């Protein structure tokens, strides 16, 4: 028997597989395809202080083994999410992780305060890495000082553990991770998207109305693996790994690099069943490579 369970701050996971923020909405759509209670946990779409419409369309583009998105944090606002979406997800009895975004530290604090009113949030994924909003979001993720500041302030407020979602668009990912750990983060979530652009030849303009977008999918997997591997050497807090995962073999690669659990985003669009199928396949892959548990595989590439 292969043990898939993982215990992380605030998260008792029966398996290490969770859908990535923004790629799974609030679960309703994918619940038509399979029983979400099968998931290790679920990460909700980003929540901001008040409702946001997001960017103009087009919001997505296809790239080689990847995609660009510039949704722009569209969401109904944290209150509506707590009121309408959390109760829906609660029925599946899996840890619910709230992805928190904002334009100012105050907005981050406001979102967290509201989330504190809910008993059903297991952890917060502090999104300081969304490349698709004019102000706020990513600049917190590019400067270690700002990252630790927002992390500290949120940690002070939050009733639940805080996982900081890091941007890969930095010169020194280790420096960022170390600063965030020092600021009190309970864990790291990496990576968010790489900033990219595609130009539409017929119109001679960037294809996304936001011009730039976040690159996700298999194309960025080597960058994610590298960053997790480097960061793992310098922090002790757990890492939720993501970036281009499509198969159970990919999951094992992330575990070996140093991830304790993983999130799957873009792959849901190609295959709505991908999380479910990977959960079924993971034991076979772990077994094939002589592991008896997920925890045993974590960090394996560092020995």
């Amino acid at each position, binding site marked *: 028997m292969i043990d898939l369970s993982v215990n992380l701050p605030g998260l008792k996971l029966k398996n290490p597989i969770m859908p990535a923020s*923004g*790629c*799974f*909405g609030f679960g*309703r*759509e*994918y619940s*038509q*395809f399979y029983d979400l209670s099968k998931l290790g946990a679920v990460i909700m*779409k980003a929540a901001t202080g008040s409702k946001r*419409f*997001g960017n103009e*369309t*087009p*919001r*997505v*583009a*296809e*790239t080689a*083994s*990847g*995609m660009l*998105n510039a*949704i722009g944090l*569209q969401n109904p606002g944290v209150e509506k999410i707590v009121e309408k979406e959390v109760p829906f997800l609660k029925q599946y009895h899996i840890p619910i992780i709230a992805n928190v975004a904002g334009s100012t530290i105050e907005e981050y604090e406001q979102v967290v305060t509201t989330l504190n009113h809910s008993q059903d949030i297991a952890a917060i994924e502090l999104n300081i890495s969304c490349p698709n909003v004019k102000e706020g979001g990513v600049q917190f993720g590019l400067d270690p000082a700002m990252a630790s500041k927002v992390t500290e302030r949120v940690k002070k407020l939050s009733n639940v553990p805080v996982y900081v979602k890091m941007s890969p668009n930095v010169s020194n990912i280790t420096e960022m991770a170390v600063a965030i750990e020092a600021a009190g983060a309970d864990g790291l979530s990496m990576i968010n998207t790489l900033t990219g652009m595609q130009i539409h030849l017929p119109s001679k303009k960037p294809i996304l109305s936001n011009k730039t977008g976040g690159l996700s*999918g*298999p194309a960025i997997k080597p960058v994610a693996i590298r960053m997790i591997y480097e960061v793992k050497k310098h922090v002790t807090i757990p890492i939720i790994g993501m970036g281009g995962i499509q198969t159970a073999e990919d999951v094992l690669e992330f575990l070996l690099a140093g991830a304790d659990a993983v999130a799957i985003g*873009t792959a*849901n*669009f*190609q*295959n*709505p*069943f991908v999380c479910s199928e990977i959960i079924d396949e993971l034991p076979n892959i772990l077994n094939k490579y002589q592991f008896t548990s997920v925890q045993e595989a974590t960090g394996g590439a560092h020995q």
Partner: protein
Amino acid sequence: MIKKEILKVMSVKEIATDSYEMSLENEYISTHAVPGQFLHLSIPGHTLRRPISIASCNQMDKVVKVLFKTIGTGTKELSGYQSGEQLDGLGPIGHGFPIEDLKPNDSVLLIGGGIGIPPIYFLATALKERGIKLQFILGFQSKDFVFYEKEFNMLGETYIVTNDGSYGHRGLVTDLIPNVSSFDRYYACGPLPMLKAVKKTLAHKKGYISFEERMGCGVGACFACVLKTNDGIGYKKICQDGPVFAADEVII
């Protein structure tokens, strides 16, 4: 309910320049799809699926037809499929054209532009069965791109316009609206500029419009395909809430 289905390619034929008709065999889709709904097709080697409208369904022989134009790599590869090969498709997706409230002998105008014509054809066949009177205005780039003229003629009075006048009338679909006899409502699908013009020209009329947008998930989870609306929420998702909307509820 949307399912992930395997569709068997029965045939692919070029029906006009860069325009193909593909027949697919699948029981679930052929028995559940309604006009206006679409398939989200997976094409190997592509990260994103391709949304393609359902152009007709035959429950008897379980065949679903789609008509598509080759725009980029995905549709080009689609046009290269051989009969016997299989396609992975999500569907049927979205809400179709509302037709329940129409009574026999009601008269409707159907307006289609380019690759917006396929869902209009499926709708037309359904309306015909209910004894609705049909008139069509179909817009194409030019003569070489015209398809399904015969099929539409069999269903009702059909006006064809081409941008360059190389076939039918010259100009835009809206130029022909004055020519058609009175109708109770309209249905339209086509490129956005055309839809904007149609909505404006027929502002006084009840109408339903089917929209296109670049999509991610195709099931309502990613918020890639939103459209601004004048209701309280301020937006709707084309894939999940549409692709068909009442002309007066959307801001375009």
